[in-house]
């Protein structure tokens, strides 16, 4: 199994490197002087900064040299400098990363737990009004744009009913500590996490329902019935475990969409994560920062994919790691 992990990590690194190269060419693709592009709107006026950029990235040197310098920079975890925010990109990202991890982690957990629950319920009561209700709701949430759900959530729970905060990570200026702090963050976390969660809940619910119905037709379920097992035991022990395999695969594939959803949600809720950082970079036309966040997002997705793959392999004995 170690060799398997090593192999996957090696593959992931190759993908990251390819991404970095892609980043490099993307900057060159933008119209105009690469130095101006990298400096962003804010930095383009500062001649000293531009000269520094030109020197650091060798922008008047041949392309291969530039590529080498760029990759070298990335490998030493130097993702560039944001002129507008006056900080290294890497620092900015590291500051904001935990908030995003908290948000996406929570959203993933709720969506998976409730999605599977509702999907299993819908399958269990297939054809009844409960099934129709769950399926229709899932369809609607699946079709709704994330940013709109976020806004509607704010409208409903914050503006109209004033139950939950709609802005930021914690109550500004209150300086809570300990348990009160945790609860305060949790209160701020509810709306954003549920917003993202609803979309994925719909996805997992539909997948779980379809998968369970599919597995229920398979031969070994008939064998289980022939043994005289009760229906609840059959569903729990035989059907659910087999039905969840494709859900795990799906969860892995959703990693990219999860990160994308974070960008939108963090923007609407002003959640201080790297999604919002990306939005700020967009507004400020700060391409260095934008691409830096992009690389980190991709790395997150890769890591997530690796974990899901491992989980899948440990759950399905038919897949071998190595002899």
């Amino acid at each position: 199994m170690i060799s398997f992990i090593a192999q996957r990590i090696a593959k992931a690194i190759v993908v990251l490197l390819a991404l970095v190269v892609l980043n490099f060419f993307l900057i060159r693709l933008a119209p105009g002087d690469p130095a101006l592009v990298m400096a962003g709107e804010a930095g383009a006026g500062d001649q000293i900064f531009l000269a520094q950029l030109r020197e650091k990235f060798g922008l008047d040197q041949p392309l291969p040299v530039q590529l080498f310098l760029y990759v070298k920079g990335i490998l030493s975890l130097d993702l560039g400098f944001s002129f507008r925010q006056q900080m290294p990109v890497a620092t900015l990202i590291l500051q904001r990363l935990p908030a995003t991890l908290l948000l996406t982690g929570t959203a993933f957990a709720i969506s998976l737990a409730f999605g599977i629950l509702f999907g299993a319920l819908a399958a269990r009561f297939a054809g009844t009004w409960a099934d129709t209700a769950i399926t229709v709701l899932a369809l609607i949430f699946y079709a709704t744009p994330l940013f709109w759900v976020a806004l509607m959530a704010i409208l409903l729970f914050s503006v109209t009913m004033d139950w939950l905060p709609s802005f930021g990570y914690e109550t500004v200026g209150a300086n809570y500590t300990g348990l009160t702090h945790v609860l305060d963050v949790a209160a701020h976390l509810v709306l954003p996490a549920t917003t993202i969660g609803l979309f994925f809940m719909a996805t997992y619910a539909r997948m779980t329902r379809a998968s369970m119905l599919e597995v229920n037709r398979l031969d070994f379920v008939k064998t289980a019935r022939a043994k005289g097992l009760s229906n609840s035991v059959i569903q729990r022990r035989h059907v659910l475990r087999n039905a969840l395999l494709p859900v795990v695969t799906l969860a892995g594939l959703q990693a990219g969409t999860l990160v994308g959803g974070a960008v939108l949600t963090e923007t609407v809720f002003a959640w201080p994560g790297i999604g919002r950082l990306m939005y700020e970079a967009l507004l400020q036309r700060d391409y260095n920062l934008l691409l830096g966040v992009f690389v980190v997002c991709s790395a997150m997705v890769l890591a997530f994919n690796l974990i899901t793959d491992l989980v899948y392999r440990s759950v399905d004995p038919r897949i071998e790691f190595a002899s």
Partner: protein
Amino acid sequence: MSVVINNLKLALPPGGDRAYAVDGVSFELTGGKILCVVGESGSGKSMCAHALMGLLPESVTAEAGEILFEGSNLVSLDPTAWFALRGRRIAMVFQEPMTALNPLMRIGDQIAEMFEAHDLLTPKARRQKALALIGEVGLPDPERIVRAYPHQLSGGQRQRAMIAMALALEPAVLVADEPTTALDVTTQAQILKLIRDLQRRRNMAVMFITHDFGVVAEIADRVVVLQHGKVVEQGTADEVLLRAQHPYTRALLAAVPTLQPPQRTPLLDRSKAVEVIGLGKTYVSGGGWFRTERRVQAAKEVNFDIFRGETLGLVGESGSGKSSVARLIMRLIEPDAGTVRIGDVDLTRIRGKALREQRRRIQMVFQDPFASLNPRRKVGNIIMDGPIAHGVDPGVARKRAGELLSLVGLNASAMERFPHEFSGGQRQRIGIARALALDPEILVADEAVSALDVSVQAQVLDLLEDLKARLGLSMLFITHDLRVAAQICDRIAVMQHGAIVELKSAALLFAAPEHAYTRELLAAVPGQTPSSKAA
């Protein structure tokens, strides 16, 4: 201990091709005896088995009749009573061992589950019993099997595990729904013996569903023959097999090929149609930096010739390499070594357009009638495509297609219809017409009749023999069924693990087999015991 089925009627949902899956069926299962329920596909035999377990699909309802067992009528039994009955008094073994076991649970756990379902024994005692059962069904190394997952066992082993599960609670009745159909003939022989031994030892009543009269001859005490959901004949094994009354039974029995090769006219022409020299192919899977390779030799130094006008049989079990050899000869897959000569052309050395041109000389009839015709093309087009690709004028090709359809016994109007409108046997005829459209010299039949009912099988075999004689074809006939091979092959090559172990004329092979494997194969064919013979 007996089960009495009285006038059972199982209704199918409206809109099907008939109203009843099972129409007024009556028979009896007695303790200590094996009853074989025989029929072709669609006869309703499987439905009877499911009815006995209360596992009928939702759409099928019991309209009339009763199934009496231990004082209750199983037809009207309520669900809670079924939970107590299933597995405990009546147990079932299914056809496909691969899909009948939960792929995520260990074998030992699945067997122990039988006890758990009925709240019997402690977990430790269950484990012990599971081990004992695994030993009883003849699985080697029970400790390892208990911890193994289904995909780690072979087909025969899985079926033994299923039988162990079925026997766990010592049921009075065992229902076996085609349990050996998906197995190799040697494995089948072992499983049949196992079932018979276990049945005798435990004095169970066994209901054995099958379509194979050889199996019936091998193990049945009593026989029930079903056609279109009705019982057409029943009696003791001797009565039905040797003194059949009903015309349907007689026709079925007549359609089963004997193991005696008929007298074949000796071939005068000794020129070779096909020469196969040193053919080799190894499949490699896995590999890469961190995984070990798995090498399977599908073909090992295979040498044989097919003489003009002869039918050479290639016989073997699954994994013997016979299908690979067929595909190598057709160059559907590339050989690693060796040559295939058709007449004076080396088929393995040419490529591209030259290869496509030479392909018309050797054509193939495939196994699965449902997968060998493109569902979206009309039958006429399917037959014409080949000649048109070789430059034949479409009008001429169309006329020829009509002629070919008549040749294989179908109406020329079939040209405008789609494959799904035809039965399995008819589709195989279309496949034959397609193969003949290019006027080949050699026909390769890859298990061409294996997926057909036995009565249809006989018709298609007759057709092939007839066409062969009329058109002067040479034929390579691949099959796992020795009876079929005996009927139509001039010479037979027996394959095992990718190599030909014996190659002789059919008569000699059956009369005096030399290689140990050939002897094993011949002995395993069911229905040869002197007490009961199938025709």
